[in-house]
């Protein structure tokens, strides 16, 4: 059942169309990711749901209730900001208590709720610290706790990991996923990082120029992008025009081919299969841990190939000739305009 429903959300500033008729349904308990390049409207869409931006048109229903005209505080939505937005003059506990006090709860209840949430984000021992005494990752966990403690019906996360350095980002990403699973809280996360989107999102909406280009599960978006924009934005697939692909396989073909580097298999196809075989030359070799990345050339077409590396196996040196086999059912094809 649809839990959050956006229909025809539109917003323009002067001649600039920021949101161009967005329709989106999010299921209860889902972690939904809005993914797109900067300026695509993803943050504005998130802020519209929160009520921090008022769209020109469109309707927003949350749990069956129309909320588009409500004040942010009445929407029952929690939000985590990119730069934490913690109240710097308050301790962690006071930050969490601020919203609860507004609800006129008894002190004891407030303390219990705060302790429970601090346990979820593993910050029990930081309750009396001030924001400036915390690391970036800890700050963001406090921000998450501040949103969770009010038991919102929807959690919005605006690039929550992008201000953190790589190590912390990965750890907090996993923790975010765990917390979201544990609380079962319907969440929408905005990011421009495809890895983050693929590893966090139950479903992903790819946005471009104020529109949603495709909404689907991570694997679906990854392997079956709806158009060239999504294909280019997600992953590092080889995108070959019909002409290029025809030359590569030596056969007439009328669609753009999207072939991930790991889809190419090094070695001959087994006897009797319907795989294509291509004679290729290695142009460049990069051994990066468990994978080897090759740039190869065949019939005048350059493309990327990725293979698993093994401990006792040499990778192909540049200049080596090899045979590649391609299973067309592992590629994705788009009609050319």
């Amino acid at each position, binding site marked *: 059942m649809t839990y959050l429903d956006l229909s025809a959300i539109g917003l323009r500033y002067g001649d600039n169309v920021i949101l161009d008729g967005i329709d989106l349904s999010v299921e209860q308990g889902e972690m939904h990711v809005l993914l797109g390049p900067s300026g695509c409207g993803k943050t504005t869409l998130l802020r519209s749901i929160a009520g921090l931006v008022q769209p020109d048109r469109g309707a927003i229903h949350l749990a069956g209730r129309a909320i588009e005209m409500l004040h942010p505080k009445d929407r029952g*939505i929690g939000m985590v*900001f990119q730069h934490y937005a913690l109240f710097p003059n308050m301790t962690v506990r006071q930050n969490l208590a601020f919203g609860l006090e*507004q609800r006129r709860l008894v002190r004891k209840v407030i303390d219990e709720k705060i302790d429970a949430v601090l346990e979820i984000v593993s910050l029990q021992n930081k309750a009396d610290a001030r924001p400036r005494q915390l690391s970036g990752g800890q700050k963001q966990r406090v921000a998450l706790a501040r949103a969770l403690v009010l038991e919102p019906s929807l959690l919005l996360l605006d690039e929550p990991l992008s201000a953190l350095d790589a190590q912390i980002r990965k750890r907090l990403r996993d923790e975010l996923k765990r917390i979201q699973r544990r609380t079962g809280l319907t969440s929408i996360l905005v990011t421009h990082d495809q890895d983050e989107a693929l590893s966090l999102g139950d479903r992903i909406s790819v946005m471009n120029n104020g529109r949603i280009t495709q909404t689907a599960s991570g694997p679906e978006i990854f392997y079956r992008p709806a158009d060239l924009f999504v294909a280019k934005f997600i992953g590092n697939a080889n995108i070959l025009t019909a002409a290029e692909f025809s030359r590569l396989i030596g056969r007439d073909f009328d669609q753009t081919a999207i072939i991930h580097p790991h889809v190419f298999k090094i070695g001959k196809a087994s006897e009797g299969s319907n795989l294509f075989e291509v004679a290729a030359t290695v142009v460049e070799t990069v051994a990066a841990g468990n994978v080897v990345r090759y740039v190869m050339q065949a019939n005048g077409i350059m493309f990327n190939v990725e293979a698993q590396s093994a401990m006792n196996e040499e990778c192909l040196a540049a200049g080596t000739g090899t045979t590649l086999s391609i299973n067309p059912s592992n590629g994705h094809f788009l009609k050319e305009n």
Partner: protein
Amino acid sequence: MSHHASPAMKLLAAPFLLMLAALVVWPLATVLIDSFSKGGVWSLGNYAEILTSAYYGQSFVNSLLISAVTTAIGVLFGFLIAVSLRYRSGGTRRIAMALANIGANLAGVPLAMALIFLLGLNGTLTIVLKASGLIGSFNVYSLTGLIIAYCYFQIALAVLLIIPVLDGIETELEEAASLIGVGTTRFWLRVGLPVVGRQMVAITTLLFANAMGTYATTLALTGTSVNVITIRISELVSGDVFSDPNLANAIAIALFLVLLVPIVVSQLLLKGDKR
């Protein structure tokens, strides 16, 4: 790199130190030394006179009163105006900043003249208010008149100083507060003001000192009729009848000490509140 500058680098500060000595240390030292000279002999007589004279005592009380009231009004309205300008577009902000800039610098004779035209015995506003029966009579050449005049530049100066301070509070903080159900007033009382508390104390001290030292506006509006400290000093320095520059020096030192009090107190307060 070393944190200690080499002797050659230290020499670069010499022109500044020389200027400081010539423009601050030397005059201040002269004033201080001369303040202990009464009738050509060394004594504490000038200070004794200030402390025992009801007349000079009153001038201090009046100056302190006007300064405290106009500082309070300036900070309050300056803060409210600066907060409301936060929610306005760039255009409105720029116009308000320009007006505040004019206000903060329009002191002295032009301000006094403007007030006389508006609120003088035959001022436009006085006549209108009298005709409408709202006031019986109003005398702008009074302590109240001075408070109105000072407020004009105190509020403008406060707006100019507070706007950039409030820019230090990210709008995300306000948004976060509104999402957890905290209203604007509560946000400013619990988060906004405490966050900029140090700067607000500094601005308050500056406004207070600004008011205590105001001379041109006072002289232009009320002449010597309202007994405030700066008028007394000028009278003793340039007066034909009561000229006593060394007594003026002593009053200036006393004024300096009075101004030192809020500065020291605010520094101590802030020390206890090291965040």
